């Protein structure tokens, strides 16, 4: 596995509306610097001026205000990021950041749930904690495998607003759902966890992918924050680019917006991640998205 990569990324998001609409959006489309990640160049394009600010999670956010009605919004984020394999270990956030305890709070999509879904989540929690390894790190790896087994990757089963418990009941989902279940179970066991949205170089031949990627980070005393990608059953490698964090998809997602009018909407997301440099002996990790 390559221990260092330079990745060229292009992330296109296109909304098409049946009629003209106004919109206000918060874009979390700009990767930051962190352990094992350096941004060489990055730019976001939109059909209007972008206004940068930082949210409380230290994500770089752009506000986009579209008060002149449009029938299409195209957002393009692109740039070059250098990554180093850290075996998923990100380390501490540093002074002034939100402390690990903050990340024990439930997000709207990461509770254990209520009703039938809640019962199934709790049963799943009992299953994975039954033979719980004593070490937190071992338990998190155990949880990672349990999620892959329990809910295989399958697009189209869930939607953006599906909660962790709802996805578990469906027995399938996409990276977002896997991350949500991982986060919900980790927090239920007193382990701080958070949602990460980002990109993943997924094949030996560069080419377009369908969507961006998402995974989870959990806090392990001594190591700090450690990434876990339940969709692929591994910890992030140099193939992963972190963009934004949140309590769950609701505040960590790439685009959150509101529009006025416009009727129906179609959304097309296209991500391409290609390595600028690749060592010849790079065995790639098989992934689904």
């Amino acid at each position, binding site marked *: 596995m390559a221990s260092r990569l330079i990745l060229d990324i292009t992330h296109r998001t296109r909304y098409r509306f049946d009629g003209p609409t106004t919109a*206000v959006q918060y874009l979390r489309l700009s990767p930051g610097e962190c352990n094992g990640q350096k941004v060489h160049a990055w730019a976001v394009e939109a059909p209007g001026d972008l206004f940068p*600010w930082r*949210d*409380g999670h230290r994500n770089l956010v752009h506000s986009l*205000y579209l008060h002149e009605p449009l029938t299409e919004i195209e957002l393009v984020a692109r740039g070059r990021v250098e990554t180093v394999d850290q075996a998923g270990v990100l380390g501490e956030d540093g002074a*002034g950041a*939100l*402390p690990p*305890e*903050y990340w024990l709070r439930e997000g709207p999509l990461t509770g254990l749930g209520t009703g039938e879904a809640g019962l199934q989540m709790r049963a799943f929690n009992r299953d994975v904690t039954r033979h719980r390894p004593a070490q937190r790190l071992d338990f998190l790896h155990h949880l990672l495998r349990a999620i892959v087994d329990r809910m295989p990757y399958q697009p189209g089963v869930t939607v953006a607003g599906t909660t962790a418990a709802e996805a578990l009941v469906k027995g399938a989902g996409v990276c977002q759902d896997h991350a949500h279940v991982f986060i919900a179970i980790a927090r239920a066991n007193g382990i701080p966890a958070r949602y990460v949205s980002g990109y993943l170089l997924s094949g030996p031949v560069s080419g377009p992918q369908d969507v961006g990627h998402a995974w989870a980070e959990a806090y392990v005393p001594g190591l700090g924050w450690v990434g876990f990608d339940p969709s692929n059953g591994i910890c992030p490698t140099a193939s992963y680019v972190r963009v934004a964090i949140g309590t769950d998809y609701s505040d960590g997602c790439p685009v959150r917006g509101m529009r006025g009018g416009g009727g129906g909407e179609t959304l097309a997301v296209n991500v391409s991640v290609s390595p600028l440099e690749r060592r010849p002996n790079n065995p790639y990790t098989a992934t689904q998205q």
Partner: protein
Amino acid sequence: MAETAANRPIFDEMRGTDGKIRPAFAGVDQWLSNMPDGEHGRMQLQADLLYERMGITFGAYGSANGHERSIPFDLIPRVLGKTEWDKLEAGLRQRVRALNAFMHDAYHRRDICRAGKIPEAQIVRNDQFLSVMQDFDLPGSIYAHICGVDLVRVSEGQFYVLEDNCRVPSGVSYMLENREVMMRLVPSLFTQNRIQPVAQYAEELLNTLKATAFPAASSDPCVVLLTPGPYNSAYFEHAFLADEMGVELVRGTDLFVDDHKVYMRTPRGPKQVDVIYRRVDDVFLDPLAFRPDSMLGIPGIIGAYRAGNISLANACGTGIADDKATYCYVPEMIRFYLGEEPILQNVPTYRCSEAQDLLYVKENLKDLVVKEVHGSGGAGMLVGPTSTKAEIETFREKLLANPANFIAQPTLSLSTCPTFVEEGIAPRHVDLRPFVLSGDRIAIMPGGLTRVALRKGSLVVNSSQGGGTKDTWVLADH
């Protein structure tokens, strides 16, 4: 340890404990003793008519006949002498300074946690803690620009703080209207007694709001009052205060964000807004940052806020300071941030999240008042001494199902004040909510809102639970 109902006689604001008229009430006593038979009934009727004409209402959620009603107003004022008020005022200033210092710290380094005074989890795991406020610098580091502090009295010299209201405290319009009605009905009382005025509140509020504007704002900042609309229980107050300040009363749809700034739609085109006195709760302010289904807020406003282009009063996330679980730590905050001893005392509070406290609370439910940590308006609480055995048992189950959700306090013997009731004049329990304004300086109106429990023996004074109000006098002497 607090003086509880069981071990202390009830203090009467007018007569003290020894039955002698207290000096501050001399004028009121004289007025009452000279009043002809039946006169108070006639005046009460007049007062009620005035209130109806002025349209002073309170929307009581779930009330049977329509959603608005007048708050019962009682003619007999509650009076505070200058000396006792001066001490209260000093205590309020101190408390609000500490609360604001705490909120700044809670959203920055959390030094108070590092110093071991408050567990960090208590702050960052609190639902009221909003991550959008982390590392965000506010003008003057002020969070609760308007703070309503609920006080009760148990003896001549002892007031307790029951609760700090740092989110969107209401009730100040009743303080102002009560004074207005009293001055119209009994002008002679105001010539015979040296009563400190409260009418400057709206002007002070506007000054405070202007002082909270970010440096980028214009030199005469544009202030608006944001209301959720007529279905909100305090809508009357929103309209009243906007009118008194001479600022626009707006709803979310009247505002929009563009260029990272907030604008108000006007017939003459968009006008930039610098300060919003918002009477809308945090989670409804921005559907892009909080509840996506909120129709009351302004999409994009949190981005403009963090960019320093709009001030919100009160700031977002102030709920971390007035939470009933955080309340117990306020004396610590005063010592930690100000290096002073608290002038106003807290009611001793048991945190049911702690095993020792829970054990005591469980065994003494019949003597305690138990409150939900996030409850408000007197809902979801148990008043042990006035509850039946069955009510206590039902509550016990609720408590044990989620102990961390409750705190408990001894039942205080709240002071009483003479009040007109059907059978004549009788003592009824009162509390007091003074309003503290923090801008470039702290301004406190002499007095506040006195709420009175109209049912005999009742300790529940909340407007939402059928309480009434009284004019509150602070004399210029005594």
